[in-house]
């Protein structure tokens, strides 16, 4: 075919093999061939178990299974565990056996993920929960807090590092039938306190001065914290300051005149930071662990789409 310019159309468009000029037929055929080749590769990847394959494996790996690495270090350790021999004394057969087992294990793990085993198996769920918590805690567990951080924690929680103090005390008030004026009660209380300091028995003092237990405390040894819970702040402050065979009173509290007789007070040993350092470290880390676990769950809940039944909203 000859056009107006006198050139053959096929010459202007270029022959099949002539790369200097455009050939629409060639373009179309090559485009179609490329598309078909791409579809074939994608199809093989999609419809075969092998998936996309890497041509080589990283030097630090002994195997790469569907893109998952098996480190040489893990392989050496596993071989030594299974054969109980140093790696360089193992045979090629032994190594291949171990490698084969590791490959099998990896395939089964990957299969487990494919079929979502965690959705139905409680053991897998528990293992995953524990594993994720460990991952979250990893940095906290490995972090070495400074002495300043530990000292600050110790100062803020000093009570935790003291042996608990023990008290045996009596909180006495005057019997209502005595109808004492406040002044009389104060004078009698003072007298009773002096008698206790001089060594008189608390039951004897109660009987002599018309006193009775307020009913807030049991007789016998009590932990400091238990006394603190049961007495008012004013009465506990007075009791805490007393040593064995000391008395405090008269103390007016809630309309009554109280007399505190301390029969025994072991304030407990206070450990220094140096003595308690290891315990402080463990407690500090435990608290940090709880903090990061809570923060992680908060983060997960924040980005999750959680829908609750109406009665639990």
């Amino acid at each position, binding site marked *: 075919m000859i056009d107006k310019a006198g050139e053959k159309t096929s010459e202007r468009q270029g022959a099949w093999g002539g790369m200097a000029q455009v050939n629409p037929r060639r373009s179309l055929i090559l485009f179609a061939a490329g598309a078909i080749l791409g579809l074939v590769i994608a199809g093989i990847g999609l419809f075969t178990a092998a998936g996309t394959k890497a041509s080589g494996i990283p030097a*630090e790996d002994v195997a790469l299974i569907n893109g998952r690495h098996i480190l040489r270090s*893990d392989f050496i*350790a596993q071989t030594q565990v299974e054969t109980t021999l140093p*790696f360089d004394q193992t045979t090629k057969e032994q190594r291949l056996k171990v490698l084969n087992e590791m490959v099998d294990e990896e395939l089964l793990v990957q299969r487990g993920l494919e079929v979502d085993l965690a959705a139905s198996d409680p053991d897998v769920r528990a293992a995953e929960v524990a594993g994720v918590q460990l991952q979250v805690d990893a940095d906290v567990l*490995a972090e070495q807090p400074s002495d300043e951080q530990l000292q600050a924690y110790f100062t803020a929680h000093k009570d935790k590092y003291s042996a608990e103090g023990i008290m045996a005390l009596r909180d006495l008030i005057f019997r209502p039938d005595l109808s004492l004026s406040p002044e009389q009660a104060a004078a009698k209380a003072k007298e009773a306190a002096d008698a206790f300091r001089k060594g008189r028995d608390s039951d004897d003092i109660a009987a002599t001065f018309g006193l009775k237990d307020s009913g807030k405390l049991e007789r016998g040894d009590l932990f400091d914290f238990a006394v603190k819970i049961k007495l008012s702040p004013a009465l506990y402050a007075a009791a805490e300051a007393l040593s064995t065979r000391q008395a405090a009173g008269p103390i007016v509290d809630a309309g009554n005149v109280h007399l505190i007789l301390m029969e025994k007070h072991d304030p407990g040993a206070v450990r220094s930071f140096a*003595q308690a350092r*290891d315990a402080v*470290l463990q407690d500090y880390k435990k608290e940090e662990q709880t903090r990061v676990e809570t923060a992680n769950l908060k983060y997960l809940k924040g980005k999750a789409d959680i829908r609750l039944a109406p009665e639990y909203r």
Partner: protein
Amino acid sequence: MGKSVPGKAGRTRRRVQILATAIAVGGLALVVFAFAQTRDYLLGQELVAAYPDEIPLNPTLTAYANEVGGAAFNANCTACHGADMKGNQAKGVPNLTDNVWLYDFGRVSDIERTVLYGIRSGLGKSHNVTDMPAMGRQKALSSAEIKDVVAYTLSLSRHPENPAAVERGSKLFQDKGVCYDCHSRDATGIPDYGAPNLTDNDWIYGGDEEAVYKSVYDGRHGQCPAWIDKLSARTIRAIAVYIHSMSKESPESPNKPSASRAPGAKHA
């Protein structure tokens, strides 16, 4: 005018010469850089692909690993282990220059496992079989009993001061305290558990009476971070080789003596 024409040509020639020299120098630098990068890449590949316990027998690989590993150790490990690698007893950080190893035998492969996965780092593959329990805090032993156990423990590596306490401590070690379960009946430790040898007078937390009492009373929970997700496989392997070069393998190491000593190591 007559003089300006050859001057222009001369300047142009000079410019061309400068440009050519610059290109040559740049090209040369590029070649040197490419060579260094290629060498680094190939040595790195060789390092990670090699059987770790045979690397000390290869001077080229060891020198390369020491260069890379030394820099990485300084950047990541000296905060705890110190620049001199001698650790810190106050914090329970072990000395890395001797032949005493808490876990395994101090081979490159052993050290690499610890650097990869850490000690009680939270990863499943870390060294975390057991802890030193707080015998006092958990009230498993009384204060007096712990003092006897301490007397016995110290008597294993030095002259006993109180034989009666040592005798009582020995019974507690073998019976009520269940110390033998991790430290073994002869108190030489079990490297699989990270339970130290108590007979060699080497102490992670210090060997005075007070420090040993504290270990038994409060327990110990030493840790080392895992570096698997923070450093490359090449850097971790290099650190392991570097530490190996600066230390000695345990006398119980199954390695051949030739492999246990790095060429160019700082001590024989």
